């Protein structure tokens, strides 16, 4: 049975191995260069106030390295989807479509075993390919991730949803889930092409919902509330003739590598800042700060006198591995559930 599964799966496995080999060569050729410029930027031995040199290092990553960095993120999103579409959906649906399931089910191997071995073997290869890819990419991008974690970038830290999906162990979970979703869609629909399309749609929806709706709450977020004073507050006032000025007060929250979930400016009573103080409003409530009574300086000091506080909810950088572990677990449980549904459906079907 294992031999049949392997023979049926051989071309797909070869394609995946070839793709992984190409990526491995590219990453191995460029990786040492990034490590050496990380060292020469002095980041390997830097412990305090590394933000500026980390930022310089990240800005200096250009050309092929930058293209590869973006490409690895895209591949990190695509690989599990491709595993679901091309490994998962046709696995059993093709046998239904071609009618070969009749031969397969009339052999000495029971259907349950047939399903279990097919699912297990191809699923394991898919998960292994995704794991290998993630391992290579995580190794290659490690200097960039470290520099971002030192405060070198506001958007490339490992916890940022864009980067999170292409690092660590989470891709294993995505691959397992996408594969199981593909097989399930194929078993339920019994037609390959619609199953492939549905797999893509479902997987894309889950990948979108996870970082926006679920991941922020996997662990209770950390909070800080800091008073805003003239030094820490960045106050920007803009206005159009004919409408009240728009005032934004932003604090200087800086925890390198943290994933900021919400950042709000609140008044002492705990409410959000909605109404600008009178000093910021010119005659007739419709002028910008340029024409307000005492000029922008008075507006800013009036804002500071309101004793505003900055409230930030975030996931600290140290939660990268716990979040990865929990998310991988969720996807693996979902994949197992879908696998059980497949087995049950296959057993139920009358040949």
């Amino acid at each position, binding site marked *: 049975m294992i031999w049949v599964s392997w023979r049926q799966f051989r*071309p797909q496995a070869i*394609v995946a191995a070839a793709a992984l080999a190409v990526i491995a060569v590219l990453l191995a050729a460029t990786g040492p260069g990034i490590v050496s*410029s990380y060292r*020469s*930027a*002095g980041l390997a031995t830097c412990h305090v106030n590394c933000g500026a040199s980390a930022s*310089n290092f990240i*800005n*200096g990553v*250009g050309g092929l390295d930058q*293209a590869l960095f973006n*490409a690895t993120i895209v591949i990190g999103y695509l690989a599990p989807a*491709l595993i679901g579409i*091309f490994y998962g959906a*046709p696995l059993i649906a*093709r046998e239904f479509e071609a009618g070969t399931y009749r031969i397969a089910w009339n052999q000495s191997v029971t259907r349950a075993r047939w399903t279990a071995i097919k699912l297990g073997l191809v699923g394991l290869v898919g998960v292994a390919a995704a794991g290998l890819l993630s391992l290579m990419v995580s190794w290659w991008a490690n200097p960039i991730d470290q520099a971002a974690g030192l405060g070198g970038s506001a958007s490339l830290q490992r916890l940022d949803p864009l980067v999170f999906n292409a690092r660590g162990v989470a891709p294993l979970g995505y691959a397992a889930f996408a594969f199981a979703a593909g097989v399930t869609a194929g078993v339920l629909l019994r037609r*390959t*092409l*619609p199953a*492939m*399309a549905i797999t*893509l749609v479902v997987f894309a929806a889950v990948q*979108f919902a996870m970082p*926006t709706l679920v991941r922020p709450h996997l662990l209770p977020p950390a909070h800080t509330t800091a008073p805003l004073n003239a030094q820490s507050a960045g106050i*920007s*006032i*803009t*206005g*159009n*003739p004919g*409408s009240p000025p*728009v005032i*934004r007060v*932003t604090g200087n929250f800086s925890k390198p590598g943290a994933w900021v979930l919400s950042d709000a400016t609140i008044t002492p009573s705990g409410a959000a800042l909605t109404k600008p103080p009178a000093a910021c409003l010119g005659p007739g409530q419709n002028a*910008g700060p340029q024409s307000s009574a005492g000029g922008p300086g008075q507006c800013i000091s009036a804002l500071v006198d309101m004793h505003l506080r900055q409230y930030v909810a975030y996931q600290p950088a140290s939660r990268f591995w716990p979040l990865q572990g929990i998310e991988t677990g969720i996807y693996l449980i979902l994949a197992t559930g879908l696998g059980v549904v497949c087995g049950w459906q296959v057993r139920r079907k009358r040949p």
Partner: protein
Amino acid sequence: MLWLAWRQFRSQAVVAGAALAAAAIALALTGVHLAALYRDSGLATCTTACGQPTAAFTYDVRSSGGQAIFYAGVVVLYLIPALAGIFWGAPLITREFESGTLSLAWNQSVPRTRWAVVKLGFVGLAALAASGLLSLMLTLWSRPIYAAAAKANNPSLPFGRISPLYFGAGGIVPAGYAVFAFALGVSVGVLVRRTIPAMALTLAVFAAVQVLMPMLIRPHLAPPVRTTYALAAVSFSATGDSNGRLILAAAELPGQRGGWILSQRPVDTRGHVVTQAPQACNAQPAAFLQCLSGRGIRLSITYQPASRYWEFQWIETGIFLVLATGLGGLCYLRVRRPS
């Protein structure tokens, strides 16, 4: 024949129509809000020193989810042509091969060449329309974002429509990509004659074309402009490394926004490329740039100006349409004389 083509394509067309309608509703609702943010931020009336209104607008766009929608739209616009190639193109004739319905289809009163032309034309036009419509919607929707990016430099905003990431996700090229990907899918299917390998191969070839186009071909669609700037005029994103290797990387073109920088290198007074920073300058990191300037070192930037956006859009769309026509001709020949 037209009726048959429609009946076979109906379910795919319904799915695409529903997806387009959903996108249209979402973009219309959020687009009104985005335009209001642009107006309220004061960018509409701002002509000089727009840094602060741009920062305010960026903050609002980010916190209201506009940025996520924008990037999702960019990703979807790159995906749609690939999907048209995989799910519409590759199975179009291959599925008939595989299931044996081809002999039935080819033994009707309609000649096979006409059968092929109608099928290709009908679904190809649908791919063109779907991709073109979505591109039109996203182009209209994202006008405030590009307008803000053109007024002041802000790292959270796209650098300009002509830069590689955004060029393929706006204007008219997505329609060209979709027709090309579709024709590619059909051709690969006709040659390979098995649906799933044809789908995988279509994806691989199309992805390779999408990567190679901005890297190798698009920079040379028109001769790039080379200008040499004094260092004082340039705002840098990176300067020099500690090994003495001279790296000067400008974040944007001085004096004009949104150009596509192809290469930049420091040159001396005679126009020769400088690779090593002078020792004397390495010794004074605080006045590094002033020291370089004092020795006559300037920055030579090769770029494509933002004003060539529409010219490039037309040329690239034309290239892809010609390629698609060629592939269509290949399919036609293959169907007329099957081996």
